């Protein structure tokens, strides 16, 4: 497979979208194209065919962010060397503008559970996650970004706040952070803390990318709101407001709109990206 012919060194502080194959032609033909695209790494680990052919074309026009969803960085076991090898193969071929993964686990006892599962924040898990990030950055030969999760519950054993945990990871590994403001809003609602307080405590200097997405609403056993990170609808107003709050402190950042289920036609997703663009305009003016 030939190397991608053009590469972009970093993501621009512009809106991007999570790439869906059904939008390929629309994206290429849009007279006001988005600034960059994000792809889920695991969808491009086949041997050939349309996914890789499309990615090759897109990578010539757009900075690409490779976003892993299956490495299980928060797992108790060691990272899967085969999967790490596949990520390296993809990143070496594509030379993406960014690589990111999640503060979560998804593999246990050789089972891959296809979900981002939570971990307690303790000195033990901190050591383990930091080692795993060291492994990733060593194998890939690039700095990675780590994304904060959507949380639906808390661990009684946790001794760190999430923001302290992330700050310490950054300090130990030199990795950057992917700040998902929808995840912040979801977790803050579910675990009853202030999303603005989370942003105030968050190491914004390390942010290389910000995610936005839609969530669903449910209730827990006691009738308290339980928000579910679904990426299946528009970003809600309080999350846009939290984005403004964040950008006012962080300055302009690459923004990504994620929409992974019930994927809409391109104009609807493009509208969300335009709304993100206006948030960036407000902060840079």
């Amino acid at each position, binding site marked *: 497979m030939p190397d991608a012919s053009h590469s972009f060194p970093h993501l621009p502080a512009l809106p991007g979208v999570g790439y869906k194959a059904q939008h390929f032609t629309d994206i290429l033909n849009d007279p006001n194209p988005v600034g960059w695209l994000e792809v889920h790494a695991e969808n491009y680990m*086949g041997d050939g065919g349309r996914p890789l052919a499309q990615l090759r074309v897109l990578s010539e026009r757009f900075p690409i962010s490779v976003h892993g969803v299956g490495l299980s960085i928060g797992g108790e076991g060691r990272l899967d060397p085969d999967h790490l090898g596949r990520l390296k193969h993809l990143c070496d071929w594509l030379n993406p503008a960014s690589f990111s993964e999640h503060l979560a686990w998804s*593999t246990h006892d050789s089972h891959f559970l296809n979900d981002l599962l939570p971990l307690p924040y303790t000195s033990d898990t901190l050591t383990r996650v930091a080692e795993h990030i060291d492994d990733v950055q060593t194998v890939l030969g690039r700095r990675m970004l780590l994304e904060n999760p959507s949380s639906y519950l808390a661990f009684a054993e946790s001794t760190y706040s999430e923001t302290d945990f992330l700050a310490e990871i950054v300090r130990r590994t030199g990795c950057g952070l992917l700040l998902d403001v929808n995840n912040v809003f979801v977790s803050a609602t579910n675990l009853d803390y202030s999303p603005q307080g989370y942003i105030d405590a968050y190491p914004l200097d390390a942010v290389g990318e910000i995610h936005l997405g839609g969530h669903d609403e449910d209730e827990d056993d*006691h009738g308290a709101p339980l928000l579910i990170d679904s990426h299946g609808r528009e970003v809600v107003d309080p999350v846009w407001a939290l984005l403004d709050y964040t950008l006012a402190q962080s300055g302009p950042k690459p923004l990504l709109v994620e929409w992974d289920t019930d994927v809409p036609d391109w104009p609807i997703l493009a509208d969300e990206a335009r709304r993100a663009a206006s948030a960036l305009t407000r902060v840079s003016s």
Partner: protein
Amino acid sequence: MTNQTAFHAGLLNPSTPVPDGLTDAQARPAGRRYGVYRNNVTVSLREALAEGFPSLVGLIGRENFDHVARAYLRQSPPTSPLMMHYGAGFPEFVASLDQLAHLPYLADVARIDVAMRQSYHAADSTGIAPTALQALDEDTLLATRFSFAPSMILIRSPWPIGSIWHYTLRGGHKPTGHAEDVLILRAEYDPEPFVLGPGAGDVLLALRSGTPFGPAIEQGGDGFDLAALLNILLSNHAITDLKS
């Protein structure tokens, strides 16, 4: 402490109690908050199977499919983060179910769904020019061995699986009850299943295992239509190399 073994145990087994040490913000037991993860895992795997097995969904209906898929995913969750490969063992699981034994062709039709996905993600290749065969003299042609595209997949069945697959997903004539060999070919990026004529499956198997063209086409028997087979292979760029 809530280790991942405990957290994992309940995700695929709804009768397992919620692990200790998981709470809400008031330190009350997590209850249905844990159920969000349990639900995410089950739904995401079930949706992946439904997307990967459109003909099976069509044949038994979504409700029945979900029931079968749930049993499969609990027994055989993915063992790799490459979801594009998940469900390769699903046809075998379907074949093992007593409640589906009255539909004996189901598993073989499901194999077409698996093969369509494998073909879609297979390595790219370049087909020979159609004129390359005509350029060979007869003796050379008979001694020639063929190489095939990695995206080419042959499925043989005692049931009319290609016709059932077409009828289920695209409508048309109701299938009749004879054995069918189905050849999946990917001319560029979209795999397509072709129902082969009599003898063509045997010829292809021989060619694919390295038998030269002459002895391979003798495997075809009486009703074998060589021109028809070569036509679909060449027009779908399935022959990638000729070796004398």
